[in-house]
C-alpha cells in the first residue's frame, strides 16, 4: 500500500534573520528533509546596466561600489582597469602595487564578514564582534586613502587621485602587525571546534564538474578542488610579480569554503606585506588628461588644463570606439565587465558578470536532501551579497 506523500511549503525570506541580503527561497520539505527549493530574486534590482548607459565613465565607478559593497575597492579598480584596457593605458608599477594593497585589504574584509557570519548562523556570535573591530581598522585605512568607509570610489581611471600618505602607510603596517593575532584567536574559536566541524562538514557539497558546469568561481570553486583564480590565470595589475598560494578544498562543502576563505586571508596578508615592502617610487597617476583632473595651479595658469578641467567636470569626455571584456578576482569570484563603447560619452552597453548571481542558481542542487539548518549554513557560506545578486 503506497502512502501519499504530503510536503510542507516553507517560505524563507525575503526578510529573515539568516538570509544576508534579500532573496526568497520557497522550500518544499518532507518532514525535515528538503525536497526542492524555488528561488525568487530581484528584490533589490537597481538596474545598474541601464544606469551605466547614461553615465559618463568616471561616474560609473560610484555605481560599481554598490555591486559587492563589502569589498568595494575591488569593484572600483576592476572598472578602472577595464576602461584603461579600452583606452590602451598601461599603468606603472607603483599604481599596480597600490592597487594590489587595496584590493587585498578589500578581500580580507569580505572574507571576514563571510566567515564571522557563518559563525553567527551556527550560533557563535563572539567571533563576529571581534572580527568587526578589525574591519573598523581597515575602514580607517580606506578613509585615509580616499575619504570614505564603505562605498569608496577609490582611485581614478589612470591611477589614484592622491598618493598614500605616511599616515596611511603607518596604519597599514599597524594593521599587518595586529591582524595575525586576532585571526589566530578567531581560528581557535571555530576552525577545529568539534561542534562547528560537525555542523559544517558534509553540508552543501558540490563536486568539481558540477561547479564548473554551474559557473562557480572564486572561493566556492576552489573549495570544490578546481584551481581557478583570475589573479593566476589572467594576471592583472602586476600580480605575477608576487608569489602566493591558492588554497584548495576537496569536497566543496561548507567547512571547505570556510577554510579556503580563512587561508585566503592569510595569503592576502602576505601579499599586502610584500607589496608594501617593495612599493616602488613613481607617480601615482598616468598621463591621461581626459580623466585626471589637472592640479589647480595649472588650471588657473594654463589653457589646456583649463579646457580639460571644464570638459571633465561637465562630462564631455568622449571615449574611442571599442569592445573589451576584463575580469578581476573579486572576493566571490570572477567579476567581469563587458564594455562596448560607440565613441560617445557614455558606454553603449555595459554588462557586469556578477559571480553571486551565477553561483546562487546552484543552491537547490546543494541543499537537496539536507535539513533546514544546513540550508541556512550553505547559503551563508556561499557568501551571497544581494547587491551583486540583483544588480
Amino acid at each position, binding site marked *: 500500500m503506497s502512502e501519499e506523500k504530503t510536503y510542507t511549503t516553507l517560505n524563507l525570506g525575503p526578510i529573515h534573520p539568516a538570509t544576508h*541580503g534579500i532573496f526568497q527561497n520557497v522550500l518544499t520539505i518532507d518532514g525535515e528533509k528538503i525536497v526542492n527549493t524555488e528561488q525568487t530574486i530581484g528584490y533589490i534590482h537597481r538596474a545598474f546596466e541601464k544606469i551605466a548607459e547614461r553615465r559618463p565613465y568616471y561616474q560609473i565607478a560610484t555605481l560599481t561600489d554598490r555591486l559587492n*559593497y563589502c569589498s568595494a575597492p575591488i569593484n572600483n579598480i576592476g572598472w578602472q582597469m577595464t576602461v584603461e584596457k579600452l583606452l590602451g593605458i598601461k599603468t606603472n608599477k607603483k599604481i599596480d602595487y597600490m592597487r594590489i594593497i587595496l584590493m587585498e585589504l578589500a578581500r580580507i574584509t569580505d572574507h571576514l564578514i563571510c566567515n564571522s557570519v557563518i559563525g553567527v548562523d551556527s550560533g557563535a556570535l563572539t567571533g563576529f564582534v571581534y572580527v*568587526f573591530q578589525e*574591519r573598523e581598522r581597515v575602514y580607517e585605512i580606506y578613509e585615509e586613502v580616499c575619504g570614505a568607509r564603505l*562605498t569608496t570610489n577609490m582611485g581614478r581611471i589612470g591611477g589614484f587621485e592622491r598618493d598614500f600618505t605616511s599616515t596611511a602607510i603607518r596604519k597599514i603596517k599597524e594593521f599587518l602587525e595586529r591582524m595575525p593575532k586576532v585571526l589566530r584567536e578567531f581560528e581557535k574559536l571555530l576552525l577545529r571546534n568539534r561542534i562547528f566541524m560537525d555542523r559544517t562538514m558534509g553540508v552543501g557539497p558540490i563536486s568539481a564538474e558540477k561547479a564548473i558546469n554551474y559557473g562557480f568561481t572564486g572561493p566556492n570553486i576552489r573549495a570544490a578542488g578546481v584551481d581557478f583564480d583570475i589573479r593566476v590565470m589572467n594576471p592583472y595589475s602586476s600580480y605575477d610579480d608576487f608569489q602566493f598560494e591558492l588554497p584548495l578544498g576537496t569536497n566543496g562543502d561548507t567547512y571547505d569554503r570556510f577554510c579556503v576563505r580563512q587561508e585566503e586571508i592569510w595569503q592576502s596578508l602576505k601579499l599586502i606585506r610584500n607589496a608594501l615592502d617593495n612599493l616602488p617610487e613613481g607617480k601615482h597617476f598616468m598621463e591621461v588628461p581626459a580623466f585626471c583632473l589637472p592640479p589647480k595651479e595649472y588650471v588657473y595658469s594654463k589653457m589646456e588644463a583649463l579646457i580639460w578641467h571644464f570638459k571633465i567636470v561637465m562630462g564631455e569626455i568622449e571615449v574611442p570606439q571599442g569592445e573589451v571584456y576584463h575580469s578581476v578576482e573579486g572576493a566571490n569570484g570572477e567579476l567581469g565587465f563587458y564594455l562596448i563603447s560607440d565613441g560617445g560619452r557614455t558606454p553603449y552597453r555595459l554588462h557586469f558578470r556578477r559571480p553571486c548571481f551565477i553561483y546562487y542558481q546552484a543552491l537547490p542542487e546543494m541543499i537537496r536532501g539536507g535539513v533546514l539548518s544546513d540550508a541556512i549554513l550553505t547559503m551563508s557560506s556561499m557568501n551571497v551579497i544581494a*547587491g551583486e545578486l540583483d544588480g
Partner: protein
Amino acid sequence: METNKPIYTKVDPPEGYMAPGLFATAFDKVIGLARKNSIWPLPFATSCCGIEFMATMGAHYDLGRFGAERLSFSPRQADLLMVMGTIAKKMAPVVQQVYHQMAEPRWVIAVGACASSGGIFDTYSVLQGIDRIVPVDVYVPGCPPRPEQIIDGFMKIQELAGKEPLRRRYSEEYKELLDRYGILK
C-alpha cells in the same frame, strides 16, 4: 595597562514630586522614559547601509548602549522599523506587510539616501523613497551614513518616543495620516 572601570550613568528622573517612598509625576513622562530607553529595532537591512548598521551594532560604535541591544526580526515584537538600503518596487509590498504587522507604538527610520528618496538610483525599478508607502519619522541622509549619523537618527527617535503624548496614536490626525497611506487600523 588601562583598567576598564565601569561607568554607571543614571537616567535623570522626570519632573515630579518626590517624597520618602513616593514619586509622583505624569504618566506620559514615565512611559516615555521607559519606551525611549528600550527600543527594540527591526533591522530591515537591504543593501550597503545594512553593512554600516552591522558596524553600528559592533563593539566600536555599539548601538546597544542606547537600549537597542535586542534586535527583533519579528515585526510583532519590534518598536522601530529601521529601513536601511534601497527598496525596489518588488520589495515595497513586503515593507508594507512588515509595517502592518508591527504593533503601536511604532516608529520608522529611513536610513540612507535610497530609503529616504531613492538615492542615486533614479530608475524604473527603485521606489523613490519609502515615505511613499509608510509614514516615516526620521530620515538619516548619507550614502551610506556613518555610524555616528545612524546613532544620531536613533537618538532623535528616542527624543520623539520620550516626548510623545499618550493619546497620539488614537488622535484624528494620526488616523488621517494612516488613511493617506492606505494603512487600515
